[in-house]
Structure formats: C-alpha cells, structure tokens
C-alpha cells in the first residue's frame, strides 16, 4: 500500500465517527493542487473542501484592476504585471484587450523585469502592478530597493498587495462557517507558522499548514480531522520541511522597510481593516497613484457574478448561474474564472464534467 492509500484509509475511518466537516483552503496554489490531483475523489462524503480568498488574482478588487487599466491607457506608460492579471475583466476591457489595442502591457515572472526595462527605457514611465500576499510583496519591496539604489526615476508601483491574517479574521468573524482551515504553506514560509496561531486561539478553529503535493494535503487534512475528533483545536505545521515557526525575517524586514499596513478592498469581502499594504510616506514618490494623480475609480463586477460568495466559501463555483454558461475560461466574467488558481477556473478545468 502506498502512502496515498494509507492516508486515504486513515482519513476515511476517522471521518466515519465525525459529523460533516467543512475544511477551507485559503491559498490559490492549494485550490489548484486539490483540483489538479482530484484530491476530493479520495475523501469521504462527510469531508467537504471549500475554497476561500486565497487566489491573489481573484481577491484583487475591481477598483484596483480599473486603476491598472487607466494607467495602461496612458500613452507614455509601460505596465508590467503577472500573467494571470491580464485577462481579469473590468467592464468590457481587460489588460489583455488593451494590449491588443496597442497599450504597452507586459507580462513578467519577476518584478525585476520592470526595473531592467525602466533602466533601458528612460523615456517610458514604467509601472509595476503589485498584487499578491506575503509571498509576492518581498519581490515588490526588492524592486523599490533596486530602484532607490540605482537612482532610476521612471519607475513606480501600483500597489494592491494584501496580507492574510486579518482577511481570515474578517472571514471567520462574519457569516462564513467552516470547521477547519488548511493554511497556506508558501505564505507561512514567510510569516512563520506562528502567524496562524490565532486561528485556534481566537476562533477555536483547527488549522494545519500544508504543502502542495497530494500526500502533504492529505496529511494536513488527516491532522485536521484528528483535532476535530479529539475536540482540541490547535495549529499543526504539516509542512515542516519548508515552514518554521519564525518564517523568513529577512523577507519580512524588507517589506517592513517600504510598506505599512493599510485598509484594503477585497473582491467579495469588501474593505478589511489592516489587510493591505501601502508605501510608507517616505517612499510616496514610488507610488503610481500619487505620481499620476489618480482619482479613486469606481468599478462594478459583472451583473450576476457571485465571485464574492465563492471567495467566502458560501457556494461552490457551479452554484453560480453564470458558471460554465456566460462565464468560462475563454470568456471570463468574474476574476475567479481567470487564474488557474481561481476556484471557478480550477473547478471548470478539472471537474466540470462531474467525474
């Protein structure tokens, strides 16, 4: 018997004696891996997995996408972004459609590409559209640091970075009912495992930090069910080969040098206090919002789109009336259908046929 079979059997016998248990994952890479490996197919009926606000593309507020589009429309601007931001719809446009119409929008894997480009093209205004959680913010901080050291003048940041803990507080303090949380392994590698200790302490919820291989996911789910069975919610680090209690202090200190907490808008969750990051006043000149004196942009999601309910784990993607009909990976109406980490896209991609 291989480790997958062993774990599946242990989970099955453990779940047998338990009431229905809902486990939420709050990391896009978990969402993707769970769908990619069909992990649900190995779980008993009583164990339900739901996706939370873990996909950075999905939780980026429509208003921030609208600001990126407004910047990309400026003739002198080259906007750099992660690949899966390209197709997020905003009204009738997206960064991808603007690029097709001639806007200079470029995909990069590392924000440093924006720095190199800015140095090589001093007459262009280069903007980095920074999105993502604790894992991607250090890269944006490193970009600013490189900019400061080199004296480059034509680089700025459209900052939509977010932090996970307060979003989880907002979620769990609201109407979302989950029994246990799968905590994001990559985020915890930066924050340290201890950053998630508040989950059992403040909310009485079992939490397990998980890796991304199917064995690791099953192991974390097993740990969660064991705590459910014993009635003693705790935080378990089920990804010790990567995550330690203190995390990565160097990355955190880099972020703290340039950023401070701010209230942030989340798609589907609204404004959450201290859940975002903005540039410290001393570095305000790196802020694209200030440099281009942008007004706040109002933006409304597509009518009927239930990404917000999906992100709060209130419905499964296929319970949205648009799912697979008006909203598909080819023609996404909601952000969750865009990134392969989005709950809707992952659902559509791997389980749409109902295996």
């Amino acid at each position: 018997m291989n480790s997958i079979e062993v774990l599946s059997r242990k989970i099955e016998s453990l779940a047998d004696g338990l009431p229905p248990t809902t486990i939420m994952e709050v990391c896009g890479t978990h969402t993707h891996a769970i769908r990619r490996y069909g992990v649900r197919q190995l779980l008993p009926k009583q164990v339900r997995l739901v996706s939370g606000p873990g996909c950075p593309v999905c939780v980026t507020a429509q208003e921030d996408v609208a600001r990126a589009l407004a910047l990309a429309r400026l003739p002198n601007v080259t906007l750099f972004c992660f690949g899966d931001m390209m197709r997020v719809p905003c009204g009738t446009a997206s960064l991808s459609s603007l690029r097709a119409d001639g806007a200079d929008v470029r995909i990069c894997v590392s924000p440093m590409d924006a720095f190199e480009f800015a140095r090589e093209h001093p007459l262009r205004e280069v903007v980095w559209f920074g999105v993502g959680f604790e894992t991607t913010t250090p890269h944006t901080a490193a970009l600013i640091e490189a900019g400061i050291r080199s004296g480059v003048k034509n680089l700025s940041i459209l900052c939509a970075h977010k932090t996970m803990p307060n979003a989880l507080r907002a979620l769990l303090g609201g109407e979302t009912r989950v029994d246990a949380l799968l905590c994001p392994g990559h985020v915890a590698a930066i924050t340290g495992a201890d950053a998630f200790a508040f989950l059992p302490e403040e909310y009485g919820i079992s939490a397990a930090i998980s890796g991304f291989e199917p064995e690791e996911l099953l192991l974390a789910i097993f740990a969660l069910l064991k705590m459910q069975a014993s009635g003693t919610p705790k935080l378990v680090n089920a990804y010790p080969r990567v995550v330690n209690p203190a995390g990565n202090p160097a990355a955190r200190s880099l972020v703290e040098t340039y950023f401070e907490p701010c209230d942030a808008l989340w798609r589907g969750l609204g404004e959450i206090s201290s859940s975002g990051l903005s540039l410290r006043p001393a570095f305000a000149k790196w802020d694209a919002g200030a440099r281009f004196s942008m007004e706040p942009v109002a933006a409304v999601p597509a009518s009927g789109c239930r990404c917000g309910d999906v992100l709060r784990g209130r419905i499964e993607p296929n319970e949205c009336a648009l799912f697979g009909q008006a909203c598909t990976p080819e023609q996404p109406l909601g952000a969750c259908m865009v990134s392969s980490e989005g709950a809707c896209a992952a659902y559509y991609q791997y389980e749409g046929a109902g295996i």
Partner: protein
Amino acid sequence: MKDCITLAHGSGGKAYRELVERVFAPAFQNEYLAPLTDAAVCPGSGRIALTTDGYVVTPLFFPGGDIGRLAVSGTVNDLAVSGAIPRYLTVGMVLETGLPVETLQRVVRSMADTAAEAGVQIVTGDTKVVEAGGCSGIYLTTAGVGLFPEGMEIPPQRPEAGDAIVTSGRIGSHGMAVMAARHSLAFDPAIESDVRPMARAVRAVLDAGCIVRAMRDPTRGGVAGTLSEWAGTRLDITLEEEALPVRADVRDACAILGIDPLYVANEGVVLFSLPAKDAERAVAALRTQTGCEQAAVIGRVSDGRGSVFAKTRIGTFRRILPPSGEQLPRIC
C-alpha cells in the same frame, strides 16, 4: 557601413540579385532551384500532399533552434503526419530593414541544414523587405509538397475505440524553451527546444508495418489540443499521467510558471493513434530514431462522449479540457 538589409534588397534589382546569389543560392543549392526561374519544375507523380504555414517567432534564435529550423520542420512535419514523404519546400521571407545580413545568413544556413536532415529540397522562394517596425526581424512562410508512395494506404486520421496513443518523445520542450527565452528565465543550462523534422521517425513507424489510424504533430495547443480534437464527440481518451515523458527541466519550468506541459507547444513530437496491438511495435521503431528515444504509450481510446482524462499519479482522474487562449505564466 554595416552590412544590413535595406529597402533596395526588396526592389527586385541589383541588390536583390546580389542577396540571392550571395545568401540564398549557395545555401539552398539544388538542381531545381539553380535555374532561378519563376517556378521550380520538379518530378513527382500520383497523389500529393500540400501544406503551408507562417512563422513569426520571437526571439529569432532560441536554445535548441531558430526561426529557420522551425519553418522547415513545421512544414515538413505537417506533410509527414499526412503520411506523405516530404519532398519540396518553398520559402517566402519578410525582412525588416536594418536586419544584419549575417543574421539572415545564420537563419538561411539553419534552414538548409534542417532541409538536408529532413531529406527535402528548398526549390523556390521570395523576399520582401518592410520598413523598420514593420515586422520583428524576419517572418517566414514555407509551403511544402509531399508525395505518397504508390499503393500506400493513407492514414484516415480517425482514431478508434481500442486504439493506443503513442508519443514519439518528450513533450512540452519547444513552448517552454521559447517562453523561458522570452521572459529571460535563467535556467542553467537553458531549456532546449525539441524543434526537428520528424519525417524519418514517421516513416520508421509506417515501415514497421503499423496500422496508423491518426498522426498529428501537437504544435500550438499541445498534446491536450490534439487529443481533444481526436476525442471529437464520440470517443474518450484517457492518459496515464505517469507514462507521459517530460524532461525534468521542462517539468520544473512548468511548475514554476504554473503551466501544464500538456498544453505546451511541441515542434519535434508526433502523436499516433493506432491499434493497441501495434503500439509496442511503433514505440520500438520510434526509439531507433534521433529525438525519439523516450517514445512511449501514453493513453488509450475508448467509446465515450468526447472527453479527455488524465489518470494522476495518485490514482484519481482529472479532466483535460481543450486549450483556451494563450498560456500565461501564473502568479506564484
């Protein structure tokens, strides 16, 4: 003065003739091209296969290949998977002013080398020059003619339930090589494209006496695209994910960028659908060919409703949808 392409090279006058005599004729030399007449006159009889394709890849040179090797291989492979023996190619070039002649020479030499490797001759061509910004260096269009041996049964290009799916080699290399080069991803050593003419490999399978129901080179859209089309509306195809040969560096790059190798373009891979009893013979024949050492049976065809599935390494199943849109690197 730098030796670069100018508008004069596209004028059909003296500069153009010089370019032909200096760059094209020596590289492509063969008896059908030599007269430099308006049309090449070549021998052949019976049914022919005819195809054409345009090539606009950037960068022009990427690890493992270049636009010239790509333009010859792509058209040769389209002919080969029809079952024909590729014989003659034409090439149309759009050149940007300012392109160093040395760059053009490198591309042309690469085309000539690839043609020799594939056993085809480049028999005629055309050159146009556009102003700077009108194209990115070089655009190529190749057309090709292939001949069917007399009495040969042409593959119906229709898979059937009970078939096995065979890949000639490891998948995903070309698309990841180009994407890594385009995004300046510093893999060391660099990921190399698999671009190569597959005519001889296809011939090896046919000559081994295998009944081939369908053959395709899974370029854009990758293996997922080809299999989705083959499944159509009445068949299901189930892949064994663990049997899929993928180079370790390609697998790693895909994982980093959040891309599924099944959707990545190939330029030196052929997929076969053939009766299960012939599958191992096809694999053995392929493995004697350069670039096909990892040929493998990767899946099976059954009656169904047009779905493609992959059996994962943990024994679960996932759906493989037809490709949609551009493959974009994921956030993290």
